[in-house]
């Protein structure tokens, strides 16, 4: 890519817009997006202090709301509005990505495995980039978030960028994308 307004760049932006619009095309898709967003947010927030989350939830699963609200406050106090905003944005993007991935997987089943092979690495890469800090915590690196650049915000931005690239590449999952030449 040589400039910011190349045909490939424009096509990517158009595909990204199409990818965001796809969940609005049926009630089921909208519901899937909503649920995936909520679940992703809960998992991301709980993974910021895995040992605490596991202890609270194994003792009483109804304390989920306590754990999520307490850790939401901790993420904000530790990383500021940018950190908590990135977590929320990542959850929302994942909601859209999961809905679109479901459609892609269904299409891939009909048309062959090549598309499926194309989306799985994208999802895995984005997921790992975002929750990596939580995984570090689970592995026993105390203060993992604090030692990461910008207290983990760089990692979160990386995850969001990967997801956006994935969504822009796939576009509307009902259509095949043809790269402009």
């Amino acid at each position, binding site marked *: 890519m040589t400039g910011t307004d190349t045909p490939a760049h424009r096509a990517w932006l158009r595909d990204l817009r199409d990818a965001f*619009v796809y*969940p*609005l*095309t*049926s*009630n089921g898709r*909208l519901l899937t*997006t*909503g649920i995936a*967003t*909520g679940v992703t*947010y809960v998992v991301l927030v709980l993974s910021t*202090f*895995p*040992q*605490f989350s596991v*202890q*609270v939830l194994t*003792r009483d699963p109804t*304390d989920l709301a*306590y754990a*999520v*609200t*307490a850790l*939401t*406050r*901790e*993420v*904000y*106090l*530790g990383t*500021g*509005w940018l950190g*908590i905003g990135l*977590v*929320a944005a990542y*959850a*929302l993007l994942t909601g859209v990505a999961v809905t679109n991935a479901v459609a892609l997987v269904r299409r891939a089943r009909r048309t062959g495995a090549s598309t499926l092979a194309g989306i799985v690495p994208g999802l895995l890469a984005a997921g790992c980039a975002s929750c990596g800090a939580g995984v570090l*915590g689970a592995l*026993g690196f*105390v*203060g993992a978030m*604090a030692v990461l650049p910008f207290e983990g915000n760089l990692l979160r931005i990386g995850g969001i960028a990967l997801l956006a690239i994935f969504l822009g590449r796939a576009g509307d999952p*009902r259509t095949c994308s043809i790269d402009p030449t």
Partner: protein
Amino acid sequence: MEPEDNITRRRALLAGGGTIAFGGAVAYFASRSESDEQEYVPDTFHTSEKTTGFGVELAGRPIVGEPSAPVDVYYWTDYLCPFCKRFETETLPDVGRDYVDAGEARVITLSYPNIGEYSTPSAVWGRCVWEQVADNDPAAFWRWHGAAFDAQSESGHDWADEETFTSITEQTESVSVADVDACRQERGDAIRESIDTDAATAQSAGIRGTPGFVLYNRESDAAGKIVGAQPYDNFADALDRIREA
């Protein structure tokens, strides 16, 4: 029934409203400060030079409660840790009233610097304040300790520096900044070593973040672990179980 695969105005509004509600809920819980903030100043304090059956060195560490209390609560903390502040203001006052002041448990404050650059220096401040007041006015340490957590700011760890901790110390009655400074200069290395010992004990106990706790029944040698600012009921249950163990 609306046609499938169409973007209806209703769905667009629903998606927009849902996104705003999601963002609003996150912002609400992020900015909601602890409502029932209390400060706990214990009734009884003591010092000890022993090492407990669990392997925790007590020399120089602030201890609250009766020496004869059957349960030890090892409390690893960091003055820069917001989750520790939540424990201090929401749970510790009730645990203190129901268990420490009642002679059922004693709390040993240990350092586990893990949040920011000033975590270790702030722990050294704490130890030096305790050294100055442990014999004559131990409650002064808890006033200082509470003021240090009160000083935490809403954004980042930049608030924690020499200036802030000097000012907290100056404002705490019965604590001399000059004496605390002398302790930091002369005994700094030894105190940092003992802070490393605390952190190593936490790691070997499997504590992976602050606040972290080990509850230990000194008679039966039974121990249990609690991590994070959990609700009071969780602490009360765990303390009851360890006491009976």
